[in-house]
């Protein structure tokens, strides 16, 4: 089991008996079999209230369909169907993928385990929902057809391919070019299976399953076909395994061991191909390429940049850009995961580690507000690479380049010991005792209304609540988050969250993006919108600075005029919006920094009302937050309180910065005492009077809430640096030294405090949908009038948004390489 992983227990039910967990034999849950066909709710916490292990159990193989998929309220319907449809790809085998192997319920009951315990356990250990990922099939019909796979007959939904049918049956079919999230290519021929009454073996990834088909995957013909295809693939493949980064997690290695023959017959010269320069992130050794075209399809379909293509044919086929471009997408790192061989690998990670010496930890990314699930691979005390984890609802299997490659910033410019600024202006390293006493001394010298606390971009919820409690105990209400404006209203959750949810965005058909450059602020949300555009022919209009979003969109300018016109109904787009089935309005969090924010939001609310964007079954009004800490901070109420006097900066005498690096030094009075608690020596550390080193997100177990309201936790992958401590512990210790001791001593006590402030932060891995209140519930402030100033870019340089990125060499290389491109 991967360290830190939640126990996704796999349950096996043979009819009504033998209901046992195959991963944790000592698990106390599920000792009694629920009735066949019962839906158990899938959740991250292993034990449910009723004592059953919460795994999804679908009694598919008794030829009865699950009778109540709709009754399960936790899983989105399409994921339900996908799980029900058994379209979870069981990957080839072994360590064949770089994406997290999260065991999910395979449901392949009758066939797993029937062959013997050892095989079943091994199969489960290699059960991977990668590299070809589970597919979300929008099963339009509930019709099923009957096919037979290796003699076992089963019901599958209509429209499935033979390969998917075999997977429902639990048979692993090897493949290279097929990926469940990409279009079907059918060029590797590794998935050949025998179907009765066909003259040739069929490419199962491309052949639709027809009723009454008899599919055979273990005949001598199929075996010979696989061996032959493997031999051909290895024909021109260089003998690079010792120097190839993909060794140990290479599909070609794994599948040749299982499905290939032990010898080849090739005695001529192998062909070689010139390497392509795709940028500072993706390393190419094109000789190793087997031309599966997964990267080509990914780039054109999902990333939306038609950079890569196949040139030539036959032996002289090459994959490249031809015009010597770099890969311009911010999702370009995902081709590294997708490539089954070592042709495309990670350049920063090249030659640094082998996959088997890395320890994996499941965690959450904090470079943007989406909360992509990642897996941190570390060796000893350093993070070697970051890989995506599967989460259908947030990031599918992709992560952005910033998430993937900014980890080398964790090794530079780290704060490792407390420091105090001496009268000469230099910073002196001191002990924790001395540093905390210095802060306490400063606290006692100022009045509560002269103090302020600012939460930075990467702060976890535990430290936010600790800081808030600490400052409140001292009588200070001057608290705000950096980057979201000081007069934000955190009362109603649906006013600052992505209400449609990231997965829900896929179903929309009209988008209005206001003041947000989604491609830079949340690349994976942009990928979802692109998915909606491709699948539903969604129309997108943007109001804001121009940007290339990788899909066709209408640019309505960057001023507020278009916004007012749509609200008044005079704009052609407003008819489009009102006629839409699932309209979505996304307001960027940069809008909250404007002085006329209230007026703008009022106009947006008018639009939302008129177009009925918010309905009973669909909430299309969204706010896209920019930073990982914002949603949690707003939920916890880290906003200026009743006695806050923020605007008069001259009154500020004590400033506590919780990792806040974007505070302009001019805004801080010269005589203010600044305490900086963070993990990188970025801008604010130069102004700080006392520096308290905290832990980065890879080193602590912190709770983060994503912009859609999903609470997730990071796990510590590496120990914290030097003398640094967990952030909330520092504040707790400080509170004791100051004299207003906080009432919690352990992580669980801090999390219990969440229950008192914002209970949704206690429910990890769950999305608490915000209630939709009628617009009339909030008083309209008629004070501000909408200004004509245009919406500005919230993010200037995509690669340099937080302190970790600014310390990262890779991000600096990206900035210089991609500087002249539109999306930076």
């Amino acid at each position, binding site marked *: 089991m991967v360290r830190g992983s939640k126990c996704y227990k796999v349950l096996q039910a043979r009819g009504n008996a033998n209901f046992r967990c195959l991963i944790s034999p000592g698990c106390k849950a599920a000792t009694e079999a629920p009735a066949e066909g019962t839906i158990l709710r899938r959740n991250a916490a292993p034990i449910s209230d009723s004592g059953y292990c919460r795994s999804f159990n679908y009694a598919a193989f008794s030829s009865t369909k699950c009778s109540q998929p709709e009754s399960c309220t936790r899983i989105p319907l399409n994921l339900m169907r996908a799980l029900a449809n058994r379209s979870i790809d069981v990957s080839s085998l072994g360590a064949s993928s770089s994406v997290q192997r999260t065991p999910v319920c395979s449901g392949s009951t009758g066939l797993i385990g029937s062959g013997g315990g050892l095989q079943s356990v091994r199969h489960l250990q290699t059960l991977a929902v990668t590299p070809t990922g589970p597919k979300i099939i929008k099963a339009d019909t509930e019709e099923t057809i009957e096919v037979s796979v290796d003699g076992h007959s089963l019901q599958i939904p209509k429209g499935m391919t033979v390969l998917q049918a075999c997977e429902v049956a639990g048979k692993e079919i090897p493949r290279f070019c097929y990926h469940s999230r990409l279009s079907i290519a059918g060029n590797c021929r590794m998935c050949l299976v025998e179907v009765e009454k066909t003259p040739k073996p069929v490419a199962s990834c491309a052949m639709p399953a027809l009723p009454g088909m008899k599919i055979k995957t273990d005949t001598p013909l199929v075996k010979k076909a696989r061996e032959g295809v493997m031999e051909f693939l290895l024909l021109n493949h260089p003998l690079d395994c010792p120097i190839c980064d993909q060794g140990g997690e290479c599909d070609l290695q794994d599948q040749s061991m299982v499905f290939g023959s032990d010898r080849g017959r090739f005695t001529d010269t192998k062909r070689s191909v010139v390497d392509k320069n795709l940028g500072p992130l993706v390393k190419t050794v094109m000789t190793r390429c087997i031309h599966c075209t997964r990267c080509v399809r990914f780039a054109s379909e999902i990333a939306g940049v038609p950079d890569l293509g196949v040139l030539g044919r036959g032996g002289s086929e090459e994959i490249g850009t031809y015009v010597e471009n770099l890969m311009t997408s911010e999702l370009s790192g995902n081709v590294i995961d997708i490539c089954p061989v070592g042709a495309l690998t990670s350049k920063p990670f090249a030659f640094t580690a082998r996959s088997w010496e890395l320890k994996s930890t499941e965690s959450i990314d904090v470079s943007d507000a989406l909360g992509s699930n990642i897996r941190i691979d570390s060796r000893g005390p350093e993070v070697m690479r970051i890989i995506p984890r599967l989460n259908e609802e947030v990031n599918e299997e992709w992560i952005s380049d910033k998430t993937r490659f900014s980890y080398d910033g964790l090794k530079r410019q780290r704060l490792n010991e407390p420091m105090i600024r001496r009268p000469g202006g230099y910073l002196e390293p001191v002990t924790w005792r001395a540093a905390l006493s210095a802060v306490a001394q400063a606290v006692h010298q100022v009045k509560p209304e002269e103090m302020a606390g600012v939460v930075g971009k990467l702060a976890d919820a535990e430290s936010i609540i600790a800081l808030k409690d600490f400052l*409140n105990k001292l009588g200070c209400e001057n608290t705000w988050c950096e980057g979201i404006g000081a007069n934000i209203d955190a*009362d*109603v959750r649906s006013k600052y969250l992505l209400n449609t949810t990231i997965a829900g965005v896929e179903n929309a058909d009209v988008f209005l993006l206001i003041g947000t450059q989604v491609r830079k602020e949340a690349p994976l949300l942009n990928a979802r919108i692109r998915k909606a555009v491709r699948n539903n022919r969604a129309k997108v209009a943007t109001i804001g600075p121009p940007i290339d979003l990788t899909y066709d969109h209408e640019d309505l300018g960057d001023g507020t005029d278009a916004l007012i016109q749509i609200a008044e109904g005079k704009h052609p787009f407003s008819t489009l919006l009102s006629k839409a089935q699932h309209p979505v309005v996304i307001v960027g969090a940069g809008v909250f920094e404007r002085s006329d924010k209230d007026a703008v939001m009022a106009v947006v609310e008018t639009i939302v009302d008129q177009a009925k964007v918010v309905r009973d079954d669909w909430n299309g009004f969204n706010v896209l937050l920019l930073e990982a800490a914002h949603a949690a901070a707003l939920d916890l109420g880290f906003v200026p*309180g*009743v006695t*806050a006097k923020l605007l008069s900066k001259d009154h500020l005498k004590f400033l506590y910065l919780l990792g806040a690096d974007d505070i302009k030094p001019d805004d801080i009075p010269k005589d203010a005492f600044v305490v900086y608690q963070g993990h990188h020596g970025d801008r604010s550390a130069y102004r700080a009077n006392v520096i308290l080193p905290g832990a980065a997100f890879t080193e602590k177990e912190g709770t983060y809430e994503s912009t859609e309201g999903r609470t997730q936790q990071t796990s510590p992958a590496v120990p914290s640096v030097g003398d640094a401590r967990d952030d909330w512990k520092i504040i707790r210790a400080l509170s004791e030294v100051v004299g207003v001791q906080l009432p919690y001593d352990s992580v669980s006590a801090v999390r219990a405090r969440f229950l008192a402030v914002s209970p949704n932060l206690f429910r990890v891995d769950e999305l*608490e949908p915000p209630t939709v209140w009628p617009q009339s*519930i*909030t008083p309209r402030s008629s004070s501000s009038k909408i200004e004509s100033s245009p919406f500005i870019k919230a993010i200037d340089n995509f690669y340099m948004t937080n302190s970790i990125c600014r310390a990262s060499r890779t991000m600096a290389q990206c900035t210089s390489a991609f500087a002249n491109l539109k999306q930076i």
Partner: protein
Amino acid sequence: MSWRGQLSQIVRELRIHFCQTSSSSDATREFILKNYKDLKTLNPGLPILIRECSGIQPRLWARYAYGVERSVPLEGLTEPQITAKLEELSKYAS
């Protein structure tokens, strides 16, 4: 009622916890629908955090100066009773 206008002089933050769907939180939701706008207009600087979470029992929290907090459970109360509880909380002054 005058205490509503005086609310922010004593209470620094109000939090209303309730469940989105369950029946025990019906009255709380009604309370919010009826009273939030009023309270907010009279106390524009007061954070009134409306926090929903499925499966919890409704509760009203009030934070006073210097971090002191009090809470009352709202299960089984009707909307006027909840208003009365809020008034009670607003009078706490020590």
